[in-house]
């Protein structure tokens, strides 16, 4: 059994990560915390998390709302880039996009009264060494927790993060992945904290080298054969995601980035990793800001950070997708 807090920004694959974490019998989901990111606002992120847990019949899992903005962020113009991208998608897909990050209906229960940072700190202080943190959105909440509690790295056995890219192109700039880019200062703080980190970068999800780990229409056909409400929900909402990632990112399926991060908590053998090594975040410039840099090999200019990161290098894709589908179908 793995005890887990899942920190999400409630974009498409975060929803799948919440479903997976709340339905897998070997995960004890202590809570879901939300952060401003790809879903556009903290209110939307929190509503989606609550509604997703209702759908998973897990209204017993608390949801705590977190940071509503990054520590620094970017120019107004660049911060709006994801919004403009959504407009491009609307122009291309029209009506089909109606369900894509649609304004979430009012949840049937309220969020936990605590701020996400307090939820994380209180839970890990009460259970030192017990709770794995899985962060699949920008790292603002984890960074704020570190700013209030320098001992956080000692209180959690591991933090598994979806963020960064090391070999393949970024998805927000040519060298930066969205979660890191969305709050580079927060990501740098986390990478330099000394916390044990497993980093799921784009190398094992958003490249066709990891095609086996993506969800395809074939997988949806498999899910459609079963009379399971959650499976029916995925069959309904995922086709547009598959099409977007096919057309705009050139990927053969829908990458399950955030689900991989959650799945690694219960089965670390799903990915091969490189480490421990130091990963730093570039803060300067416009294009390079948010780039993740892994210190491997030998360089004359010394690195001065903690060697605590394990970066994922390959993934056993079909085994992972089977695990995902079986979890959704309740066959584990």
């Amino acid at each position, binding site marked *: 059994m793995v005890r887990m807090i899942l920190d999400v920004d409630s974009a498409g694959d975060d929803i799948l990560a919440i479903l997976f974490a709340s339905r897998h019998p070997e995960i004890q989901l202590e809570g879901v915390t939300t952060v401003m990111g790809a879903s556009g606002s903290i209110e939307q992120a929190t509503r989606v998390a609550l509604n997703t847990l209702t759908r998973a019949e897990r209204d017993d899992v608390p949801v705590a709302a977190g940071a509503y903005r990054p520590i*620094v962020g970017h120019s107004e113009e660049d911060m709006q880039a994801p919004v403009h991208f959504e407009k491009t998608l609307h122009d291309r897909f029209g009506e089909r996009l109606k369900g894509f990050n649609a304004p979430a209906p009012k949840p049937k229960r309220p969020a936990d009264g605590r701020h996400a940072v307090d939820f994380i700190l209180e839970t890990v202080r009460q259970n030192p060494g017990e709770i794995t943190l899985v962060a699949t959105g920008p790292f603002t909440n984890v960074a704020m927790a570190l700013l209030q509690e320098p001992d956080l790295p000692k209180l959690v056995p591991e933090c598994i993060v979806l963020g960064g890219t090391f070999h393949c192109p970024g998805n927000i700039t040519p060298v930066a992945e969205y979660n890191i880019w969305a709050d580079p200062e927060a990501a740098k703080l986390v990478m330099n904290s000394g916390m044990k980190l497993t980093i799921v970068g784009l190398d094992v999800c958003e490249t066709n080298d990891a095609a086996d780990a993506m969800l395809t229409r074939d997988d949806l056909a498999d899910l459609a054969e079963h009379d399971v409400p959650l499976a029916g929900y995925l069959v309904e909402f995922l086709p547009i995601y598959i099409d977007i990632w096919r057309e705009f990112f050139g990927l053969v399926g829908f990458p399950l980035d955030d689900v991989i991060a959650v799945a690694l908590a219960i089965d670390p053998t799903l990915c091969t990793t490189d480490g421990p090594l130091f990963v730093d975040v570039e803060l300067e410039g416009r294009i390079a800001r948010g780039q993740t840099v892994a210190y491997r090999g030998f360089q004359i200019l010394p690195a001065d950070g903690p060697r605590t990161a394990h970066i994922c290098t390959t993934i056993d894709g079909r085994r992972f997708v089977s695990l995902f589908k079986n979890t959704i179908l309740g066959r584990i």
Partner: protein
Amino acid sequence: MSIPIILDCDPGHDDAIALVMAHRSPDIDLVGVTTVCGNAPIEATTRNALRVMDFIGADEVPIARGCYRPLARPLRLGTADGPSGLDGTPGLPDSDRAVEPLHAVDALAAWLHDAPSPITLVPTGPLTNIGLLFLKHPDVKPKIKEIVLMGGVFYRRSEYFTPTEFNIFCDPEAAAIVVDSGVPTTMVGLDVTMQVLVEEPQFEVLREIGTPLGQVVLDWLAFYEKLHRGTMGVGGALHDPLALAAVLDPSLIETRPAHVAVDLRGTVTFGATVADFWGERELPDNVRIATSVDADRFFALLYQLLRD
């Protein structure tokens, strides 16, 4: 009616004097004190806040310990106050008081939330606590009447002035959050605080006070002036007390509105507070900058608060 304030500080000799003034003024209701790293590490600034408040008998004022590092940069300590942060009075007894169980950021939110009327925040250290407060608890902003902070430098009219002032330099990211917070903010910067210098005439008056408190303040100032004397050849500048005094008597300073941006990227100018005096950025004014000070009236107020 006294003015409710919260002092967020990194004592620091001049912070300590601001604490003394705030507690002794009948016109101020000191709701709480929060500490931050800056002039010294958080352990030291918190210890100093506790023992200063003990020494002046401010037992009823809650003290909450705050951030141990800036939001996004390694901590660079100040150099004016010695390793303890209060080297002028090494014998000042330790306090056996405990700090509040809440982190300063959460204590600030709780005090503001519970306050019957809006409170004035007086930050005299790096703005880390206030920045984190606005990141975590933006809902408390309407409960802040205004922020009167010691920080920044805008006119740089002589070689006394580096491009940056320490509090902003220490945590520029936090300062950027504060100036863009939408909360009415007055920046009492080096342009005015470097005009309230403790020189021989001021020492003369302070020596005449002759109370135990007066002696402690003298000891603080005797140590505090070393850095100023050694680097710039002038007496100690009462940076933080001036910010506090400006709350007590706003007529001590003149201010002007401006849009201020904090440089986060410069190699040697990060932390510079750059005012747009002519509206070239086409952005609305976000702070008021202190432009001049009546030093004589400031010192009169200081002496009066130390004597009464």
